[in-house]
């Protein structure tokens, strides 16, 4: 099968004999792994290197002699011990394999010609390699209704199932969503869901990938292609910033499937369904395929690239650089982000650039000493989790953290505005009032806890958390992200800076957007230059390459929008950004976009902000881009283009290069590789990530950039907001399935988002006399929205929870960029 063997470090070697050869292996590891690593691959169906062995299928029987003579043993259930003598190819073994296959095929239909798995099917392949060749069975096989929908994304043909327990083990062991289970007994056993309770897991697509037969198929791929017609290339998923390694698989130049690759440092072969099935957006008929220009009547008209770029260049050339700003860039590859940094900061000369949209964290978070996912998951470690619900925003990171907490004894202390999906696995949940996180962090670090608690957290909880931190055996790892979009990101940075006082503390910044770290590292942030450089300090390295750098530090996203709304901007460039949807202050975004005379947009779809643009340049989507991407850890890995872009679509970097030439700049870019090398050459902290470095076999899963901390400079703490005891404080979060562009354009995922609700605590629900479904008005300074109530034990008293971009009213209508936290009145409608 396609799984990579379980990685192992030999610390306690023993010698065993495999097929007559003495080999050195790790004491206690599974025999099936030890043999595979030593060129004796043992066939298997149920064993998966990332799950506990169960010995269900019996295909991995080998002869093992531990001194009492050879006996057939399932090698996935045998731990290696010294002096074992193993024969994986004896006559007995061959007979056993032959017999096991004959039994597995007793009820398995021979419908390979119409089965999606045919051609890449472990059962088919192993029957050819080890099987009986002819069937002695003449009995009628089992028949079931075909196929049954176990979730909106996964279909099950039960008669093909060989009961290997992979999907059910995955559901219970890896994701803890045991919504599929073996039902009935003996030859009637089948995998099924409870009636009316579908397998609605964010990770359901993995079961399709690991199914060793064609029993589980995914709706987006079913009957779309034959495996031998597929072309594959390895790339990295950019749906969120975890950076899972994937295979992009295409047929007739269209993406048809994405599978996970086992990158040991990152995704362990797992993917979330948004990453797995979101490729449908790349194939969407709604894609922008040619440049658009707004004509006098106000509508868009297709135009030629030369005219569109000419118009863009004219606008940029004739405008004072201080009246030009660029928003976005987190969708871009590292190289495109760097090209745009060079264009805006070097060629145009403006520093009003921000890859984040006010919904991330201040860029200084990247200056804190870094931690990798593996370091955060170090067995026996202690983690302070200061981020968004990882299952909703960074699903595969959730799987790693859950595994660390349940298997490797990692103690997670949640420091979040409300319980996240990690809560069942966390050692402690500390849920403070939004806006006052820094005070909680200070109390945890100092151990100095006032008897009436801090920021709504009671003293006992704080003391247990402080004790757990003090008792941590190694350095504490801190996961830091934007847990609450209704709370200033500065508050989170303040808390992180407080926690940096813990001995040896390192930080994993979990900014959510695909390549946001790459874009910030490439310089798409005010005051920053590529490679973590500072404007005013590292100017020489870049002015020598670009010709010049801006003279003063520019504005961040909120600053740019404020300037635009005040009429201080003439040109706004949107690099795959949708401020009208994503800026957590919708009123400001609206006023800004209404006022700017010229908006240039580079995007794949017409989103609400692009609809306001004057020139629209269509760009390549995921799966069409060569280059690199940087995940949340700072790991640089290759993106590879698999399919051709539609129409006359171009890459973001080539547009930057073209505009630079039109603006008469000496700086230019000739290729992705040259851009990468230029970025790395000027950035000591990116050493080892040049284009050729990333081509090596050992860097196939990416190369880490330098993660050591640098002085972030002076960070002014934010004063905590006043408490208004009549109000609830707003917690605004994201969910994986929302109304975002990727999901709306992926037919299989569109429609999975749940309707919007307003979540309140059990205590507040009692006080207000509210039950699930009661319509509530949430009133803030900016307006009011009405949604049905959802009463939840995970929400602390005094908070109200809204989700961004669901089908219904959006919390961003209530938020203001000027507020540290947002107080709302909640009453029955």
């Amino acid at each position: 099968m396609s799984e990579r063997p379980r990685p192992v470090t030999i610390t306690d070697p023993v010698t065993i004999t495999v097929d007559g050869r003495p080999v050195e292996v790790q004491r206690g590891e599974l025999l099936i792994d030890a043999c595979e690593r030593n060129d004796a691959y043992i066939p298997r169906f149920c064993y998966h290197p990332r799950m506990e062995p169960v010995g269900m299928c019996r295909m991995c029987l080998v002869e093992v002699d531990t001194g009492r003579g050879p006996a057939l043993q399932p090698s996935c259930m045998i731990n290696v011990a010294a002096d074992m003598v193993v024969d994986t190819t004896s006559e007995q073994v061959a007979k056993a394999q032959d017999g096991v296959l004959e039994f597995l095929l007793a009820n398995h239909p021979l419908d390979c010609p119409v089965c999606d798995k045919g051609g890449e099917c472990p059962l088919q392949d192993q029957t050819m390699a080890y099987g009986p060749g002819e069937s002695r069975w003449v009995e009628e096989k089992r028949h079931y209704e075909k196929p049954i929908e176990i979730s909106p994304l996964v279909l099950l043909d039960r008669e093909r199932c060989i009961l290997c327990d992979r999907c059910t083990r995955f559901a219970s062991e890896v994701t803890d969503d045991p919504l599929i289970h073996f039902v009935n007994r003996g030859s009637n056993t089948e995998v099924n869901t409870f009636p009316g309770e579908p397998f609605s897991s964010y990770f359901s697509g993995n079961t399709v990938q690991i199914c060793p037969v064609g029993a589980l198929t995914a709706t987006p791929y079913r009957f779309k292609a034959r495996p031998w017609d597929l072309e594959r290339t390895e790339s990295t998923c950019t749906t969120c910033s975890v950076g899972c390694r994937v295979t992009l698989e295409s047929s007739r130049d269209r993406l048809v499937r994405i599978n996970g690759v086992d990158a040991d440092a990152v995704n362990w072969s797992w993917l979330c369904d948004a990453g797995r099935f979101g490729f449908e957006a790349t194939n969407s008929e709604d894609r922008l395929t040619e440049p658009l220009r707004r004509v006098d009547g106000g509508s868009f008209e297709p135009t030629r690239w030369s005219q569109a770029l000419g118009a863009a260049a004219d606008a940029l050339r004739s405008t004072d650089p201080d009246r030009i700003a660029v928003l976005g860039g987190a969708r871009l590859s590292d190289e495109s982000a760097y090209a745009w940094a060079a264009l805006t900061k070097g060629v145009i000369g403006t520093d009003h650039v921000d890859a984040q949209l006010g919904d991330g964290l201040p860029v200084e978070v990247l200056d804190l000493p870094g931690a990798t996912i593996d370091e955060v998951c170090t067995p026996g470690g202690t983690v302070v989790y200061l981020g968004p619900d990882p299952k909703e925003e960074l699903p595969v990171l959730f799987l790693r953290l859950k595994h660390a907490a349940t298997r490797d004894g990692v103690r997670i202390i949640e420091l979040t505005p409300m319980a996240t999906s990690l809560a069942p696995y966390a050692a402690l949940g500390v849920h403070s009032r939004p806006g006052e996180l820094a005070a909680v962090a200070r109390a945890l670090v100092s151990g100095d806890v006032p008897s009436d608690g801090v920021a709504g957290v009671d003293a006992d909880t704080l003391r247990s958390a402080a004790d757990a931190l003090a008792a941590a055996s190694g350095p504490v790892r801190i996961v830091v992200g934007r847990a609450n979009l209704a709370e200033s990101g500065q508050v989170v940075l303040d808390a992180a800076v407080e926690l940096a006082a813990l001995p040896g503390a390192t930080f994993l910044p979990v900014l959510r957007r695909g390549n946001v770290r790459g874009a910030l590292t490439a310089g798409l942030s005010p005051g920053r230059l590529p490679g973590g450089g500072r404007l005013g300090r590292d100017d020489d390295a870049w002015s020598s390459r670009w010709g010049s750098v801006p003279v003063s530090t520019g504005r961040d996203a909120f600053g740019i929008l404020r300037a635009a709304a005040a009429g201080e901007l003439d040109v706004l460039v949107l690099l795959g950004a949708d401020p009208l949807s994503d800026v957590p202050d919708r009123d400001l975004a609206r006023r800004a976009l209404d006022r700017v005379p010229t908006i240039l947009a580079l995007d794949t779809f017409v989103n609400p902000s692009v609809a306001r643009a004057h020139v629209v340049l269509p760009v390549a989507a995921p799966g069409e881009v060569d280059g690199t991407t940087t995940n949340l850890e700072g790991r640089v890995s290759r993106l590879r283009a698999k399919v051709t872009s539609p129409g006359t679509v171009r890459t973001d970097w080539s547009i930057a290069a073209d505009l630079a030439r039109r603006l008469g700049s000496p700086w230019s870019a000739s290729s992705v590789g040259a851009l990468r090398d230029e970025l790395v050459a000027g950035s000591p902290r990116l050493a080892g990530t040049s284009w050729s470095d990333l081509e090596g076999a050992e860097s196939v899963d990416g190369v880490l950039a330098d993660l050591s901390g640098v002085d972030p400079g002076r960070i002014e703490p934010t004063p905590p907001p006043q408490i208004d005891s009549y109000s609830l404080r707003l917690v605004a979060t994201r969910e994986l399935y929302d109304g975002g562009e990727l999901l709306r354009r992926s037919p299989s995922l569109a429609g999975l988002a749940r309707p919007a609700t307003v979540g309140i605590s059990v205590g507040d629900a009692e006080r207000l006399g509210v039950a699930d479904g009661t319509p509530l008005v949430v009133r803030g300074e900016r307006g009011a929205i009405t949604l049905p109530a959802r009463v939840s034990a995970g929400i602390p008293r005094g908070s109200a929870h809204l989700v961004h971009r669901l089908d219904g009213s959006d919390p961003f209508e209530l938020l203001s960029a000027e507020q540290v936290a947002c107080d709302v009145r909640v009453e029955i409608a």
Partner: protein
Amino acid sequence: MARLTPDNELLARRIVARYPEPKSATIPLCHLSQEQDGWLTEEGMAHVAELVGCTPAEVLGTASFYEMFKLHPVGRYCLNICTNISCRIVGGADLLARAEERLGVRAGGTTADGTITLEDVECIAACTEAPALQVNYRYVERVDEAALDALIDDLRSGSGRAAEFPPHGTLGLVRQELGADDLANVSPPEDQDVPGWFARHAEAAADGGSGS
């Protein structure tokens, strides 16, 4: 009715408390639900899942493994006639055929009035008393055609021997109350004295009694 009644839910919570892991109470609670409704309904399984903290799919997986959990409605009486070898030699299969004829249903079916579900079962471990059958898992032994006819008449009319058989699903085990010293794993083994049941058995044996 499908979810547990408030009284049964209270009992269910007491049963859950008997175990170190709530999930261990899955089977006893399925029995309780089946006792309440006569069969195990989807709503009942979903309620059991809530009470033991797992998914309904896990409860279904467990319940569907066992023949004695009925996932479809059955009659007030389950009439299980053994047709395995010892009973068959002395007429078990003939008894089944006669029961099918008398009841007007095939093995596996339920009479139209919902009184009796007839089942053809494998060995019920009563070979010495063959031919044997069970009514709601209570044994009726050395059955002949006349006895079968009389039994069916009693069950249908609710008279005579019908009183011996509580409705399908009733199990004494579910309602048994355990003393604190009978609970499993409430303290580490090294801290435990001789368990209460052991001492009681020893006393009973010393008295010449039958124990239990």
